[in-house]
């Protein structure tokens, strides 16, 4: 199977479209995931939790400082609340998004250090409600140095969160660009497809127009050929009548006179050749008429047996070839047939002539007519002659085609009989088939459609 350049281009465009479509699907999935992430409006993408941690830590330290300065004027409740918040935030910060992604080992170390130091004061904060706020005096001084660590920690993490957010934003931008690019790709390949479709349509129309013109030219040429053949045949037959007629008179010494036997022999050759030429001209004329559809079909109800017998008389097989017997069998249910008399007779004469021509002396020819199950009438002409090699059968059905095994007798025929017969059978709505083996005779089957 060969691909033209146009086909290759179509395949290329199809692959390109498939690739762009796949890319678009991937981009859309990406975009949908991004949109879902954006919909999570409370996602902490600016380090807010760290800022809040520092704020609560500072509030706690302020409260502890106030307690340290005037414990008798303070309540432990606020300090405890701030302590609990700071405690919980320090513990849970590394686990919540986006800190689970952005915290460095230095951040985690700082967090761990601060958490351990804060946790170290837990017993005092738990004891404060029962033992009084005084137990918290000194906590501020012990945790004082954490303020610097906390400030540095939150500053770094806020920056990291910001970088992380920028990365995310860049990913969104990239994904959007990707989506736009693949959409443009789909649009462009779609346009190419539309162009290819339009071009195919245009080419198809052009080819249809060319075919229409070619068909018209062919019909014209065929008419011209048939006309030419008809004219030529007519023109050839006229002088041929003179050749045949006068050579016949000479060979039969019709006008008397002293003619040497050699001239009589020459006249015999002229007569035989003229007769053969006439047969060829008649066949060529018939073939051109059949091919041009000029054979008008005139269906009539015919007595099949009578028609077969009449054809046998025409070819005079026993006299021609000393055939030992000609058997004609016509089944009761196909005594009558509705078909064109002229065509039927010409076909039968062709087949019977062939059977007689290509069979040895003392041959037997059988003509058998019967009705098939589907209502068709099958007329078989069988001989026990030289037969045809199976591979030659298609050839003998073509105009001027003859079996290679029949070369010794081929000069006796024009090579048109079977071809004409087959074309005529097709015009009658039937078929002609040949069954043969070399040296074992030939059966030609004619199938006529049922009477209508």
């Amino acid at each position, binding site marked *: 199977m060969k691909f033209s350049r146009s086909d290759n281009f179509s395949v290329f465009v199809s692959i390109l479209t498939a690739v762009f479509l796949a890319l678009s699907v991937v981009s859309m999935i990406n975009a949908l995931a991004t949109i879902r992430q954006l919909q999570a409006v409370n996602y902490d993408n600016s380090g807010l939790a760290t800022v809040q941690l520092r704020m609560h830590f500072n509030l706690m330290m302020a409260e502890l400082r106030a307690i340290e300065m005037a414990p008798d004027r303070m309540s432990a409740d606020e300090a405890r609340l701030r302590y609990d918040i700071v405690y*919980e935030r320090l513990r849970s910060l590394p686990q919540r998004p986006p800190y689970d992604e952005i915290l460095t080992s230095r951040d985690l170390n700082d967090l761990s250090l601060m958490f351990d130091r804060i946790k170290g004061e837990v017993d005092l904060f738990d004891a404060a409600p029962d033992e009084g706020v005084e137990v918290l005096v000194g906590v501020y001084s012990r945790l004082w140095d954490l303020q610097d660590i906390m400030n540095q920690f939150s500053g770094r993490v806020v920056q990291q969160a910001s970088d992380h957010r920028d990365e995310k934003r860049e990913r969104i931008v990239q994904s959007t660009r990707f989506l736009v690019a693949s959409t443009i790709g789909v649009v462009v390949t779609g346009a190419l497809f539309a162009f290819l479709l339009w071009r195919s349509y245009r080419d198809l129309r052009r080819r249809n127009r060319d075919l229409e013109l070619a068909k018209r030219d062919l019909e014209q040429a065929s008419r011209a050929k048939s006309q030419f053949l008809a004219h030529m045949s007519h023109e050839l037959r006229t002088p041929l009548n003179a050749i045949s007629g006068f050579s016949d008179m000479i060979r039969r010494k019709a006008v008397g006179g002293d003619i040497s036997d050699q001239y009589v022999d020459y006249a015999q050759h002229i007569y035989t050749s003229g007769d053969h030429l006439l047969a060829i001209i008649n066949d060529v004329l018939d073939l051109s008429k059949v091919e041009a559809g000029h054979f008008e079909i005139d269906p009539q109800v015919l007595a099949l047996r009578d028609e077969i017998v009449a054809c046998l008389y025409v070819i005079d097989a026993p006299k021609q070839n000393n055939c030992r017997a000609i058997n004609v069998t016509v089944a009761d249910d196909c005594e009558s047939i509705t078909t064109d008399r002229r065509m039927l007779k010409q076909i039968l004469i062709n087949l019977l002539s062939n059977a007689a021509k290509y069979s040895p002396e003392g041959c037997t020819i059988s003509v058998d007519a019967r009705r098939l199950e589907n209502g068709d009438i099958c007329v078989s002409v069988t001989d026990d002659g030289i037969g045809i090699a199976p591979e030659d059968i298609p050839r003998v059905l073509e105009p001027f085609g003859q079996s290679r095994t029949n070369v010794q007798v081929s000069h006796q025929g024009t090579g048109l009989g079977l071809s004409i017969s087959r074309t005529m059978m097709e015009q009658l709505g039937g078929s002609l088939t040949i069954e043969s083996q070399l040296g074992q005779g030939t059966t030609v089957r004619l199938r006529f459609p049922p009477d209508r």
Partner: protein
Amino acid sequence: MILLVRHILVRLAGATIAVVFGLSLICPTAATAGLATPAGPVILVVKGKIGETNVGDEAHFDREMLMALGMRSLTTHNPFETGLQEYEGVLFSDVLKAVDADGEVLVGTALDGYSIEIPVEDIMTFPVMLAMTWNGEVMRPRNKGPLWVVYPIDQYPELQDETYSVRTIWQLADIDVR
């Protein structure tokens, strides 16, 4: 005599109307008889579009009041913790029913000021819990208490999404129904 009886009856009827009217003025929260007043420390305040109140136009809950709504257990994973976690608490929807909430969005605020929007649809579609104990321990601010909004993500795999993760607010103290 008849006139006297009639006079007394008219007076009694008038007095009764006055008493009932007066009582209704003295007890403006008569319609919120279903919501008790908190006896212990308040751990949750619900405000906004609610039909039941007990302190001004807010509904205040202490631990006992919440527990009275019916304690439930839930065992599930949590996006912020490792391994299976066990919780006990009340259904968020029970709290909303108790205050006759009529809104579409809940704004939850934690003790530390953190705030988050939770669609009421979440609460009505899934058995979201307001957890009060975590792995057998009563939750205090130090371990995400007093209340933690917990989504049953093991039971409903569709909840295993960041959209819901950020709604699992802990140290919850205030709900504004909008």
